[in-house]
């Protein structure tokens, strides 16, 4: 039977936090997957556009990422096809690709005043001899909507780090930017055990 344990959680009490790190993750326990759930909002400043991304790093190794996802315009016909970027873009979804890539909330009709973004990151662990080796992550995100639009997307992200997972960091936008998560943004890290039992 699978069990899900809350390993760490936090809620921000300021508007100046650029990244949240969960450190001290035990390497002795039998976690087969990790999962981060977050409910967060981008803190707006005059130099801060409406766009937002989430990046992560594992054991201090920062991810690269490959865009992929589905963006909803809020109507049956406005749902774009899954797509990929990086020179292998599919035909569908071009109209929304830019907005999805950079997650420009305003451009897709989103509205931070309507709520927070919800973000889920699944971190699978390779099993067997390479148990707990972590190099890839799948991330899903939905953004607040106005009365007509919604937005959900996913990113496949990767790092080359194959050491035991001991820390993971979630950034507001890329690590090189100075954007902030807003006050009251919440982050939780779960460990999932024995999912095959």
């Amino acid at each position, binding site marked *: 039977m699978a069990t899900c344990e809350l*390993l*760490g*959680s*936090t809620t*921000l009490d*300021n508007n*100046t*936090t*650029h*990244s*949240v*790190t*969960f*450190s*001290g*993750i*035990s390497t002795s326990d039998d976690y087969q997957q990790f999962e981060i759930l977050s409910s967060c909002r981008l803190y707006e400043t005059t130099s801060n556009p409406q766009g937002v991304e989430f990046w992560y790093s594992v054991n201090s190794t920062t991810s690269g990422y490959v865009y992929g996802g589905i963006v909803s315009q809020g109507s049956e016909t406005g749902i774009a096809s899954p797509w990929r970027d990086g020179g292998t873009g599919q*035909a569908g979804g*071009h*109209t929304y*690709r*830019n907005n999805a*890539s*950079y997650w420009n909330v305003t451009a897709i009709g989103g509205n931070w005043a309507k709520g927070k973004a919800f973000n889920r990151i699944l971190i699978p662990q390779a099993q067997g001899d390479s148990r707990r080796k972590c190099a890839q992550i799948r991330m899903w995100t939905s953004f607040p909507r106005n009365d007509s639009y919604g937005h959900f997307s996913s990113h496949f992200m990767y790092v080359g780090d194959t050491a035991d997972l001991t820390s993971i*960091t979630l950034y507001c936008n*890329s*690590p*090189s*930017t*100075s954007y*902030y998560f807003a006050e009251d943004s919440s*982050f939780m*890290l779960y460990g999932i055990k024995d999912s095959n039992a």
Partner: protein
Amino acid sequence: MHRLVVNCETGEKQLVAYTAEEIAGAEAEAAAANEERAAREAEDAQRAADKESGNQKLKDLGLTDDEIAAITS
């Protein structure tokens, strides 16, 4: 600008301020990233315009939407 570190072992939370050097570096890289994004968006816009223009030219030749889809997809 801060990073919040949550220690899963102890439960301790530590808010660490970025150094002035780190902030300056981040701002410089952000400016470069914004330029890169603008270039990519312009590229995508041009691609979309080319597609529309190409489709219109095919229509002008008398092809139906289905025929255009068949040869371009």
